[in-house]
């Protein structure tokens, strides 16, 4: 990929942020609104070149609040939309992310994590925003959070993020980090036919029969596009099945529970994991994001010593892949959760640990990567 965007070969050298741009475009994203922030700015820059080439729209908004607002608006007008930011901007977006949850507007939000809190370490990686991605906006809400660990991942998971967002009408958060974002790797790009694309379901009934927030068996109602003959009302207020504000306890309860149910019913396809050498593993690493790469090497290295170690990579962080983690906890004597924070996913692992499997944590919050050697020495101590 060169800067003008012309594709020449199928094997390309690109950085994680560029792969997210390409993944989004492949998934059908045609609207991007963003605000400059390190280490996510390359996503905006890439979009500003590529989108107008395909009749899409890029706009740099006045802040991150405006960016996510515009993204939601564009999605309501029927266009797949995305924004990208880092910690400080992600905090600003939270209110409108809640709007997208409540009004069920598909959209993708990329958070390239850097050290925090506050302005923190703008040019260093971190995994400190995991719980914010899950619980950043107020109120009980379902959300999908995916983590990328390689450049290839950045492409594929971005496509997946759009698919899940469209299918479940829910905002999807992609957590990358400064290391993945700025690492350059070769990626064999899939051909368009190899990429599975899901679009939201639109209403097909006569407009007078359309009930915008109808309780369906999947929990996901068909979504009308502005200007296609199905005018309806959209609000962040608690609303009835027709979309109008309500304060009735029965209608409110039904709405909030349906928002959860639509995700719960999709656990089987939303919760994605990758297993590495888990077949005969007695001890395991549970990791996500760039830490996975070090963990993989460490597992290979300790196996040289005859230690039966394995790796469970969490691609989906939320809804938390409880079943897969429980399987590992049941199978293994001890589990290591290395993270570039002071223990966010390890809490989830401990929460679902029904046996007395030992859960060890290894944490770094100094803006530096967790190395294979560090995980290696942790695993040696666990044997």
């Amino acid at each position, binding site marked *: 990929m060169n800067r*003008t*965007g*012309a594709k020449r070969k199928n094997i390309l050298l690109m950085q994680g942020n560029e792969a997210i741009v390409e993944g989004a475009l492949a998934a059908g994203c*045609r*609207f991007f*609104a963003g605000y400059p922030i390190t280490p996510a700015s390359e996503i905006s820059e890439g979009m500003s*070149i590529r989108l*107008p*080439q395909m*009749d899409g*729209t890029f*706009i740099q*908004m*006045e*802040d991150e*609040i*405006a*960016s*996510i*607002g*515009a*993204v*939601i*608006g*564009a*999605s*309501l*007008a*029927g*266009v797949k*939309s995305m924004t990208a930011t880092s910690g400080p901007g992600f905090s600003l977006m939270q*209110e*409108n992310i809640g*709007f997208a949850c409540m009004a069920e507007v598909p959209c993708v939000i990329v958070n390239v994590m850097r050290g925090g809190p506050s302005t923190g370490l703008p040019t260093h990686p971190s995994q400190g925003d995991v719980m914010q991605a899950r619980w950043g906006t107020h109120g009980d809400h379902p959300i999908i959070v995916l983590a990328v660990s390689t450049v290839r991942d950045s492409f594929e998971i971005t496509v997946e993020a759009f698919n899940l967002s469209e299918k479940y009408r829910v905002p999807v958060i992609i957590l990358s980090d400064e290391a993945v974002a700025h690492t350059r790797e070769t990626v064999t790009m899939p051909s368009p036919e190899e990429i599975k694309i899901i679009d939201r379901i639109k209403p097909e009934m006569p407009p007078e029969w359309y009930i915008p927030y109808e309780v369906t068996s999947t929990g996901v109602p068909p979504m009308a*596009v*502005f*200007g*296609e*003959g199905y*005018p*309806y*009302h*959209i*609000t*962040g*207020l608690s609303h009835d099945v*027709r979309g*109008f*504000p309500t304060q009735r306890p029965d209608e409110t309860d039904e709405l909030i529970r349906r928002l959860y149910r639509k995700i719960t019913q999709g656990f089987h396809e939303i919760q994605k994991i990758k297993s590495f050498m888990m077949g005969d593993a007695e001890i395991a690493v549970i990791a996500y994001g760039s830490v996975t790469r070090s963990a993989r090497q460490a597992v290979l290295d300790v196996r040289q010593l005859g230690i039966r170690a394995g790796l469970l990579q969490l691609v989906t962080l939320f809804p938390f892949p409880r079943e897969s983690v429980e399987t590992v906890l049941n199978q293994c004597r001890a589990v290591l959760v290395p993270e570039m924070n002071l223990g966010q996913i390890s809490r989830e692992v401990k929460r679902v640990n029904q046996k007395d499997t030992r859960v060890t944590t290894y944490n770094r919050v100094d803006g530096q990567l967790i190395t294979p050697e560090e995980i290696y020495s942790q695993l040696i101590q666990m044997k």
Partner: protein
Amino acid sequence: MPEEITRLTHKYLRHDKKFPHIWCPGCGNGIVLGSLIRAIDRSGLHKDDVVLVSGIGCSGRMTVYADFNTLHTTHGRALTFATGIKLAKNSLHVIVIMGDGDATAIGGNHFIHAARRNMDLTAIIINNQIYGMTGGQQSPTTPYGSMTTTTPYGHIENAFSISELAMVAGASFVGRGTVFHVQLLDSLIERAIQKKGFSVVEILSNCHVQFGRRNKMGSPVKMMKWFQEHAVTMQKAKQMNTEDLEGNVTIGVLTDSDKPSYLEKYQLVQEQAKASLKK
């Protein structure tokens, strides 16, 4: 005339679903809603091509009552959602209803930048100089010295002029009216809807419950009379000196220019980008 009102009511309001409304008796919001649907009717727009976007506050409820594509957004952010809608599907006419707090306090940044970009939107701002829904707190347009629930000793800040703010920020059309001068309001909104680029109509309205009551301005009728007595048309204002204008408010078209809108310019960007691919 009654038949005309019935026709408009049936055509443009969710009259059999969402009424009675929540606005206080005598509120100016209903007058603005009336003007808005008359202006849309006169403009000949198809209902399904109109998106009405609102923020939070009493004015935000307007989207519930009007039968278009309607979007009730978060506080202050209506213009950002509207920007996304317009850019994603530019055949839609996107009209944004805001209050003074919504548009110029929490949403002030979005307001000046939408104007600066000359984004193809129509912003209708109902300025009642107070936060009505939350119980009468001071807003950016509350006059100096006023009593509100958060300025119990009198307001010590100066007020924004919404129209002048929009003009200097770059809006292509700015008009100001009041809920008393309804025919002027109809025509201002109609012209704003038809204008390319960012068009603003500021409407002075009465909140007799939260503002008038605490500032001894009397009933809705008395507040309307204040608008009648203190509004000066642009033509008349030109012949008056600054001292005579003091304490009055000018109404009419404040600016109307034909500069290129954001969409027109972005379409050129798209053409340029596509041409770069062919090379």
